[in-house]
Structure formats: structure tokens, C-alpha cells
């Protein structure tokens, strides 16, 4: 290194040091977030090591024996875990395949409402369940389907007084429907926001042009509105497809009961039950880690495919 370069470097270092000193107070302001992220995000990341150990809570991460990929092999060979994966995929894909189109249809219908005050009221009402916690929604559902609740009252009204009162929540066969419809109930109104915003962004001239070409209002939806919101639709679809291994923990725990929980475990709930309730820390961590890695891979692949097909991606 030649001398001028050296002095330049040293000078540079000096000015940097001076700038750091000048900005002491800014670093102090930033320190809260930095300390937080190190303690509550990076330290638990290091805890992933547990997945490769036979973790012993009394020995800790540093003393517990190494176990290799034992726990990952157990994921495949344990029937309860395979069942949880299957359930997760089932619940998520039904939500994705049916819930997603329903949201777009509702957004289209809301978009066609001409009375603005009416539209606003309907929207506000449809947002209500979004602001409730999942346990509040589960509580609403349990009351609604109670033996002497509204659902059975309606059933008797329609089928006659001789019909028996049934509790559909005690049968695990109904769980899929329950998960699907409660998701729709809670989030469909809120999910329309993004599509309605996209629809508002469609150039009005396109509608005029379509009208001139003899497009009916119905056909305009297919030729103008839907193509106009396609990029938004794709992005939301990618994000949801990426979350396919993430069943909603709060929802599933909220809706499970003594009769249904055996058959309705998903990955998140089994990590909780194996890990925190039964103390199988390593197995639960391995399961959670496998879920995280696979989720990321799925997101990556879906994004790639979407880019190939429609040129829209999230990165």
C-alpha cells in the first residue's frame, strides 16, 4: 500500500469515527430496537440447534448431546406428525382454492354497488369480525351451534319440531367446514380492501372504450376489471400459497375440543403440544424448523412460477 492511500484510509477512518461520535444520541435512540432484535430474534435463532440435539432442559443448549438428523427422521416416521402435515395442507388449500375466489367475487359485487353510503355501511359491518380475536370468533361459533342456540333453533324451524338438536362441533368430520367458514366469516370483508383498491385504480377510460365496443356491464368485469386487478390478485395469491404450511394456530386451538382434537392437529398445534405440553423440545423444534424451511421453499417456487406465467412476483 502506498503512503497516500494509507493516509487517506486513516483519514477516512478518522472522519467515520468523528461522525459516529457526533451521532451518539442517534445511536442511543436506535439502541432499543437493536437490543430488542438481538435478544428476542437472534438469540432464539441460535436455539434452532436444539433440533439437532437431544435437548435436556437441565443441561441447556451447550451441554445437551448431539443427535444428528434423528428428529427429522422421526417427523416422517411418526404417524401423528404425518397426519398433522396432511391436515395443514388440507385446511390451507381449501382456504386458498375456495376462499380466495369468494373474496374476489365479494369485492366485485361491492364494487358494483352504486349507493356509496350503503356500500360504506356494508363494508364497515363486514370488517367487524376482523377486529375480534380468534378466540372471540370461536366463542361466537360455539354459542351459535350450541344445542339450544340459533343454529339448532333454525334447524327445528325448517325440519319441524321432531328434528333432533345436534352438536356439529363435536364431530371431527365437520372441522374442515368449520375452519373454512370461520375464516371466511372473519376475514372475507377485510380481504376485499386490497382488491377494491386495485379496482379503483383501473383506468375509467378502459370502461368507456369497452362500452363503445358494446360490452355489457357483466362483460366489462371480465374484459376490464379482472385483467386490471390481475397483478394484485397474483401477489396476494403468491403470499397465501407461501403460507400453505402455516395453519392458523389461534383458529385451530380455538375450535378444537375434547372430541375433535385427536383428528384435527396441524403442524403449529402439534409443535405446541409436543413441545410445551409434553416436553419433547427437540422433536418440536425440528418440526417447526422443517415447516419454516419448507414454507420458504414453497414461497420461492410459487413466486418463480407466477413470474413465468404472468410476469408478476413479490421479488
Amino acid at each position, binding site marked *: 500500500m502506498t503512503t497516500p492511500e494509507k493516509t487517506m484510509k486513516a483519514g477516512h477512518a478518522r472522519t*467515520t469515527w468523528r*461522525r459516529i461520535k457526533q*451521532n451518539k*444520541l*442517534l445511536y442511543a435512540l*436506535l439502541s*432499543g*430496537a*437493536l437490543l*430488542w*432484535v438481538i*435478544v*428476542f*430474534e*437472534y438469540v*432464539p*435463532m*441460535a*436455539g*434452532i440447534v436444539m433440533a439437532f440435539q437431544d435437548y435436556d432442559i437441565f443441561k441447556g443448549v451447550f451441554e445437551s448431546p448431539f443427535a444428528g438428523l434423528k428428529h427429522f427422521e422421526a417427523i416422517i416416521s411418526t404417524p401423528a406428525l404425518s397426519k398433522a402435515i396432511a391436515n395443514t395442507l388440507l385446511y390451507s388449500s381449501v382456504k386458498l382454492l375456495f376462499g380466495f375466489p369468494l373474496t374476489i367475487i365479494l369485492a366485485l359485487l*361491492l364494487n*358494483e*354497488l*352504486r349507493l356509496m353510503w*350503503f356500500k360504506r355501511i*356494508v363494508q364497515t*359491518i363486514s370488517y*367487524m369480525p376482523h*377486529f375480534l*380475536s380468534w*378466540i372471540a370468533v370461536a*366463542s*361466537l361459533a*360455539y*354459542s*351459535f351451534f350450541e*344445542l339450544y*342456540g*340459533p343454529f*339448532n*333453533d333454525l334447524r327445528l324451524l325448517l325440519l319441524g319440531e321432531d328434528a333432533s*338438536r345436534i352438536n356439529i362441533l363435536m364431530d371431527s368430520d365437520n372441522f374442515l367446514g368449520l375452519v373454512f367458514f370461520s375464516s371466511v*366469516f372473519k376475514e372475507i370483508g377485510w380481504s376485499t*380492501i386490497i382488491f377494491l*383498491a386495485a379496482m379503483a385504480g383501473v383506468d375509467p377510460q378502459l370502461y368507456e372504450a369497452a362500452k363503445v365496443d358494446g360490452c355489457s*356491464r357483466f362483460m366489462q368485469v371480465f374484459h376490464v376489471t379482472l385483467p386490471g386487478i390481475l397483478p*394484485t390478485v397474483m401477489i396476494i395469491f403468491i*403470499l397465501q400459497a407461501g403460507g400453505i404450511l402455516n395453519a392458523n394456530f*389461534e383458529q385451530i*386451538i*380455538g375450535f378444537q*375440543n375434547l372430541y375433535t382434537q385427536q383428528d384435527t392437529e396441524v403442524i403449529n398445534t402439534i409443535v405446541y403440544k409436543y*413441545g*410445551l405440553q409434553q416436553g419433547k423440545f427437540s422433536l*418440536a*423444534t425440528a418440526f*417447526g*424448523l422443517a415447516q*419454516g424451511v419448507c414454507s*420458504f421453499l414453497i414461497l420461492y417456487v410459487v413466486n418463480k412460477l407466477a413470474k413465468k406465467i404472468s410476469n408478476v412476483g413479490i421479488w
Partner: protein
Amino acid sequence: MRTTKGEKLFNGFNVLFMLLLSVLFLYPYLNQLAVSFNDGSDTAYGGITIFPRVWTLENYEAVLSNESFLRAAFVTVSRVVIGTASGLFVTMAAAYALLKKDLPGRNLFLTMLLIPTFIQGGMIPNFMLFRSLDLINSFWVYIFPSMFVFYNMLVMRAYLGTIPISLEESAKLDGANSAQILFKLYLPLSMPVVATISLWIAVMHWNDWTTTLLYVQSSNVQTLQFMLYKILKESELMMQMAVERSMQSSGESAASPRITPTSVRAATLIVSTLPIVMVYPFVQKHFVKGVMLGAIKE
């Protein structure tokens, strides 16, 4: 504009459909409202719609005089207040510091804060961490782990960035330091975004119940939403016992109590959700904003 007959028909059906939908969204909640004001033993006959049949305040008296419910309400309000204030402070301080493009190490710090939005340790490593920090069964498990949200910081920073830099420069000439500039100049000027982010944090705190489920066993620091969970699971147990009892001895029925699990649950549900249900129509625009910003970023 000319509307055809078909369009008129469609408009009519659309309005009708929306009315039906609104009823579907509201009915379960209104039904619970009615049940909460209805005599418990009367509710057990079924047939309650959205009006109470035998009016009573006993359900609310039972809930509001219950000591663990009151404690849960106190814990919930405390965590909303402390959690929102501390979360807002950390978020805003970081947003302001990261606004300065010439701050040495800025990109490194930003990346450090960003990475955890993609990779997390997960439930079990979190539990181990909280255990070693003595957060298990502590009130502070509600505050510290959820103190910072990267996305909120980005939103805050974007807003602070719109405040003219000339204001800051003239304040600096008057001898103000960074902290004074942040709290005396930026804070008053950024009330809209402060309101928005405070509401996001507050609703998150109010509605969270899984933190209690995962990390708190002690009954001293339970929250309202967790009470709802407990009542739901316990009434399930009671229901199961009732079913079993009726199978054992069909015919002879015990004198029905006036307050039933169903009516207590309804009253608890209403009390623990009413603040949000009352307020959200007036503040929804702050939450809609969050959805929109997310869309632009993506």
C-alpha cells in the same frame, strides 16, 4: 346513463345480497348480546334471537364481580397502555435514527432488523429464552417480546421522511440535540402516523391471548381474551359432563341454575370485545391504511 332492465334486476339482487350478508356478519354477535341479558335458565330452552326474553343483569353481575375477571381486565388494560407506549417509543426512536442517510452503519442496522421477518427461531426456542429471562408467568412477557415490529418502523420512517428537513436544520442552529428534535419537533408533527401505529399496537395487545396460553400458567397475569378461552374450554367440559349425566339418568333433571356457562360466556364475550366493537367503525381508516401501505411495499 341508461340502465337496462337486466342491470336494474342485478342492482336489486346485489343490494339484497349485501343486506343478507350484513345480517350474517352481525347476527351471531347480536344473539350473544341478547343471551348475555337473558336469564340463564331461560336461555337453556333455546329460541333466543336478538332480543332477550327474560331480562336480567345477573350475568353481568356475576362476571363483573368475579375477582379473576377483574384482575384480567386490569392486566389487559395495563398491557395495552404500557405496551402501546413502550412500543411506540422504541419504534419512533429507531425510525428517526434510521432516517438519517449518513448515519454510519445504517444499512447494517436496517438489515439486522429486517432478517427476522424472514427467519424466526420458533415457539420452543422462544420458550427457552423467556424461561432464562424469567419472563414465564410474568406480566412483562406481554410487553418486551412484542415491543418492536419492523413493518411499523418502516411506516413510521416513511412518514417522518415527509417532514421538511429545513425545520430540523433550523432547530439544530438553535442548539437542539437529536432527542429534542425528535420529541419536540417530529412528534407533534407526526400525530397522524402516531395515532395509526398506536391503534395497531393497542388492538394487537387487546386481542392477544396465545401469549398467555404459551407462556403464562399463573392466574394472576391472565388477560381478558384468555379468560374467554378458559371459559370456552371449561364450558365444553361442563357440557360433556352434562351430556354424560343425562345419559346416565335420563328423566330426572336437577333444578336448573339461573346462571349457566352459556350465559356467563356470553357476558364475558360482550365485555371483552365491546371496547373494540364500539371503537373500530371510527378508527377503521387507520387500519385500512396499513393494508394499503403493505400493498404498495409488496
